[in-house]
């Protein structure tokens, strides 16, 4: 048994006992489950697994600490309303918020942050990391880090645009269907049902085969395929609003459909729609990344995380984690958005009670 393992278990058990002694129920339960998992993992996988667990815990602790200090800083510097809001944020949400801000900065200032150009070949294929290229080179010898930064701009930008298009189309159609009712509502509902009867990814593959892969085609196809989901939500939300008496009062006043949709229904639908925007962005983002990964999305030499995973995939079999980095960048962003959306949904559901 190595010193590391002895120290590992000793520390863990000590922490367990401390938690037990001070009656920290949550901490005790977590720590003890960790002891069990570690015993099992240590037995099966040996020291290397334990080292991985330690790294994971350290990473988690670091992120939690970061999230905590970020939240507390925001509480200090924001005006009163914002500070009050931040106080209700769980650590996950504050972590998500921080990461989203980092992504936005990376996307906006990509040319300043990235040391090299997007398609600039500066070294041999799969060059190992050094002082110049902190993450090494890719299959053509381009700087991985630079491409990662530019990828934020391309991948996130395209996903945002796609979501926005899907959203405008879906929301306008959904709210109008609810307000107009009758056969328009029926027809739109049927169209949407049919569009949703084909799995989105499959449908996207089919359409992209036909229209060919370009950024514009990709954006339009994905927007078309995801707008039915937004339509459904907007229709459902608005469905609850149009039965309200104030809508009836406005109708009986003789207001136009446009006024009803924009001035009476939309203001009351913004909160659920905003949360939905976050969720849908995640789905769209994942779908675009998936298509890029399959080689049918954003085309080279444009830096894009999905394609970067695909281009570097061969390294996996050598135990290199290089292709995991862009994949992790995708996962981290979606997780962050989901965390923030989760928090938003929690707040809005709390307000209802």
């Amino acid at each position, binding site marked *: 048994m190595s010193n590391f393992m002895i120290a590992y278990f000793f520390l863990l058990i000590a922490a367990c006992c401390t938690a037990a002694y001070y009656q920290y129920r949550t901490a005790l339960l977590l720590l003890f489950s960790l002891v069990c998992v570690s015993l099992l993992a240590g037995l099966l996988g040996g020291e290397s697994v334990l080292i991985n667990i330690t790294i994971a815990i350290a990473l988690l602790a670091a992120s939690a600490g970061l999230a905590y200090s970020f939240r507390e800083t925001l509480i200090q510097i924001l005006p009163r309303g914002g500070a009050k809001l931040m106080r209700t944020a769980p650590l*996950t949400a504050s972590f998500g918020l921080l990461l989203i801000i980092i992504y936005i900065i990376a996307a906006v200032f990509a040319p300043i942050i990235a040391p090299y150009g997007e398609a600039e070949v500066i070294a041999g294929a799969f060059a190992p990391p050094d002082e110049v290229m902190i993450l090494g080179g890719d299959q053509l010898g381009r700087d991985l880090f630079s491409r990662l930064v530019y990828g934020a701009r391309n991948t996130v930008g395209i996903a945002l645009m796609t979501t926005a298009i899907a959203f405008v189309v879906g929301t306008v159609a959904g709210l109008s269907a609810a307000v107009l009712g009758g056969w328009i509502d029926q027809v739109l509902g049927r169209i949407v049902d049919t569009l949703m009867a*084909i799995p989105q990814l*499959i449908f996207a*593959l089919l359409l992209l085969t036909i229209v060919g892969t370009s950024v514009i085609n990709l954006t339009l196809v994905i927007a078309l395929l995801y707008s039915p989901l937004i339509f459904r939500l907007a229709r459902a939300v608005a469905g609850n609003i149009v039965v309200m008496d104030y809508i009836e009062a406005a109708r009986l006043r003789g207001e136009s459909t446009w006024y009803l949709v924009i001035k009476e229904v939309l203001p009351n639908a913004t909160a659920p729609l905003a949360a939905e925007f976050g969720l849908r962005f995640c789905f769209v983002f994942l779908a675009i990344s998936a298509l890029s990964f*399959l080689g*049918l999305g954003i085309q080279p030499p444009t830096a894009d995380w999905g394609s970067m995973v695909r281009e570097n995939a061969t390294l996996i079999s050598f*135990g290199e984690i290089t292709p995991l980095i862009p994949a992790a960048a*995708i996962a981290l962003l*979606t*997780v962050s958005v989901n965390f923030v959306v989760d928090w938003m949904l929690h707040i809005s559901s709390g307000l209802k009670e």
Partner: protein
Amino acid sequence: MSGVMGLIVKRLGLGLVTLLVVSIIIFGAVEMLPGDLAQQILGQSATEETVAQLREDLGLNRPAFVRYFEWLGGAVQGDFGVSLANNRSVAEQLAPRFANTLFLAGLAAVIAVPLAIGLGVMAALYRNSVFDRVANVVSLGAISSPEFFLGYILIVFLAVQNQVFPAISNVSGDMDFGTRLYRSMLPALTMTLVVTAYMMRMTRAAIINLLASPYIEMARLKGVSRSQVITRHALPNALAPIINVVALNLAYLITGVVLVEVVFVYPGVGQLLVDSVTKRDFPVVQACCLVFAATFILFNLIADVGAILSNPRLRHPK
């Protein structure tokens, strides 16, 4: 029961109509190609005569609806035409791969369904506990990760660093069940991760919704014990939402298979579809899409029919 049967027949009919419309969309999409199929296959440099010749061979001179019914009639009998890439029958290529895909999805479902329902019910019963919170964060993480990310992580840990399972799942028809299981394990686990997360969250929401019903409170106020409240009052009513959750997730599983098959080079329909899309092999693409769409519609249908059958209000009409 006639009311329920009526509802189910209606629902089945609607499913069939949907499938028909979807088949029209799939067929029509290829019709919308700029120029036509013959032009597409031969490219811009082809002469008029060769294009016309191919058009003749493929029967493109006949009206679209005639070809549609031929195509549909063939598809119903299991004949999807001939591949453009290698002139082999599409059905011949598709059949073994479809079996592989079903095996993979089935394996993932066998692991994921009990796991997800168990975890979901636990999270609902002990909501806001440590377990619930950890489960919430972990499942959110799994849902947010692209399938290929999870797949590669599993490869790094279970195939490269520790050689537990093979990274490449080359299964074939003549393999015995054990080997097949062993080779399909990593892709199945990847899919399990995603689907379990979804299913668990949906189960949790459904059960929490159920436990908030006044009749559950009533049962507790009659002095029924916690475990009996669950078995006698919650479970009979939980069946409907759980069947729904499972069927919807199996539908998702069938389509989620595409990415996972590519990551693990698993010889399934998803892999075939992606290959054919790259080669612009339209008959194969159409066939794969139709198969995926039909399975997807089928599971959504099962979800609806299950919901009808497990609803006591519909089972015992007035």
